[in-house]
């Protein structure tokens, strides 16, 4: 098994004919993802790697049965794209786009909830269930099918950690890139709930960073509801307050969101913490 996505997801790509779209459709098809449709207004009838392109999401859904959407459109058009796909009945939406205004994200995250849809992102690398599907821009080469679930607020740092797991022969059930923005759809807690239920997940790795209280909330949730071993890495121990450290969400604001507070919360929840990102693999190896 895996969480959120598997080989059954039929993916429609919004922003399919751009440079990113063309590149990542090929990458996803190569990973085994069922990419069934693309949408770019005004480009109906074209194909990208034999995937048919439609003018709008509804037509794409009606013609192909797509149930999942990957959003690669520029930030200014992202809100419209998410609303359109939710209204067309799509139930899983992965928003890769970076620099989306927070107020737009707030609106579509709430609309997704209202539509009972899973929304991952924005500003995330996507999600991969190795051996089954990859929806997003994560590099396929780093993964190996297995039993460790990964949820992360970061992109490259996650690749680094997943890669080090794979190098040790430790595979992954699902790797969820939650996104680096302050307002995101799927959170650590949402992922933890699913990983706990998932038979194929034996251990969970969380990759957090400064900003907000998602890690503290997760720690509390772990104490109460999670029986599987949890490992974590927190980035930004040396980040000064008030500075946005690359990710829009990575900011210590008004005394909240420090790495120290997150580390303390995880320690209290008996989560095993790594000093360096590449140590996670060693910790996991020792414990499972």
């Amino acid at each position, binding site marked *: 098994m895996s969480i959120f996505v598997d080989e059954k997801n039929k993916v429609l790509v919004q922003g399919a004919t751009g440079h990113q779209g063309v590149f990542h459709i090929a*990458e996803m098809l190569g990973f085994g993802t069922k990419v069934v449709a693309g949408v770019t207004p005004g480009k109906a009838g074209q194909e990208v790697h034999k995937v048919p392109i439609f003018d709008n999401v509804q037509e794409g859904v009606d013609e192909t049965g797509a149930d999942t959407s990957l959003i690669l459109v520029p*930030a*200014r058009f992202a809100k419209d794209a998410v609303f359109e796909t939710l209204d067309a009945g799509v139930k899983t939406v992965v928003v890769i786009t970076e*620099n*989306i*205004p*927070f*107020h*737009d994200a*707030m*609106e579509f*995250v*709430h*609309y997704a909830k*209202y539509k009972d849809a899973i929304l991952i992102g924005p500003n995330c690398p996507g999600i991969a269930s190795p051996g089954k599907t990859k929806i997003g*821009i*994560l*590099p396929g*080469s*780093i993964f190996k099918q297995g039993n460790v679930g990964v949820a*992360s*607020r*970061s*992109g*490259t*740092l*996650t*690749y*680094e950690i997943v*890669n080090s797991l794979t190098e040790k022969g430790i595979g992954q059930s699902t790797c969820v890139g939650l996104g*680096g923005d*302050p*307002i995101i759809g799927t959170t650590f807690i949402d992922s933890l709930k699913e990983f706990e239920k998932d038979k194929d997940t034996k251990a969970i790795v969380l*990759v957090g*960073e*400064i900003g*907000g209280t*998602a890690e503290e909330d997760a720690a509390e949730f772990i104490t109460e509801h999670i029986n599987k071993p949890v490992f974590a*890495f927190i*980035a*930004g*121990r*040396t*980040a*000064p307050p*008030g*500075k*946005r*450290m*690359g*990710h*829009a*969400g*990575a900011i210590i604001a*008004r*005394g909240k969101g420090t790495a120290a507070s997150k580390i303390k919360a995880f320690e209290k929840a008996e989560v095993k913490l790594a*000093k*360096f*990102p*590449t140590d996670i693999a060693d910790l996991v190896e020792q414990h499972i």
Partner: protein
Amino acid sequence: MKLFEYRGKELFKKYGLEVPNGKLVSTEKDFSGLNFPLVLKAQVPIGGRGKAGGIKSTENKKDAISKLSQIIGMDIRGYKVGKVLAEEKADIKNELYLSISLDRTKKMPLIMASASGGMDIESVPDEKIIKEWINPLIGIQPFNIRNVVSKLKLGKEESKETSKTLTKIYKLFRDYDCELVEINPLIITSNGGVMALDSKVIINDDAMYRHTDIIPEHVELTPLEKDAKEKGITFIQLDGDIGVIANGAGLTMATLDALTYYKGQGGVFLDLGGTDDPEKVKQAFELMKKAKPRVIFLNLFGGITKCDTVATGVKAVITKEGINCPVITRIKGMNEEAAKEILKDAGLITATTLQDAAQRSSELVGGK
């Protein structure tokens, strides 16, 4: 983007809020049209300016000019005061706190209000803060306003005025894509009116494209950081002397953390992002050189972006432009072997692990 107080107040006026009569002053003639007593307020993008001497009351013009000269040019925790706002002293009966911010956990706008205005809200005990969350799809409703205002225990007329203010600032918060609108204090005047004595407005940078009436100032950034922002490079200056270049924000932060573990300290955070565009790599190195680090630590993970393409860009910059400090590199991922050869060939030090690279960088600047 943080707005200076006076610009926040311009927005308040646009939304029909009362603010004290005032204007920016720099010379004697600027005081015409203002009635004494006045308050002179240093315009800086940080709090705590009152304690630092950046706010002064004055009764007459002669005194005002002397106090103005004390404030202009003053250094308030690293910010040099360039602008001073002079405002007529308000008639304060009562001080309230009112703000709207983005609650990251509930993913909603959060209204916070308190009858203890004028104080730093972090020092107000939680039970004295009224909190109300607004569903962004529905917007602020009369019941939300009642929930807030009734708990402030104000008179009838004062409640009515405070309710109106709340509606107005919610509209401002949404219209201008704010991360924060804070009025501290919002005062009740002796004739029952309400007035915003201060303003703190932060507009989401990513939404600035739709607010073309707001001139971007980025007062909180250093000159090099501003330069980087214009070039679209994530570049942050820190206190240390090791310049870190990595790809991805999380990885860049983790690299800085690793340095600290070996008693080194990062001086620059530079996130290359997913780029392998040689022009971007060149711009990144140019910026880094201007920050004058004693060592540069390049930490890359190649996934979609191939290690060797980035390495080729780095080599091109270094062989052409030269570099005046040691560069320690650590490369991992897609095509790492080829990348290491390219970097060695460019005369750079290649380390095998993050720990090794962090330790060697730190040792070069005297850490261990």
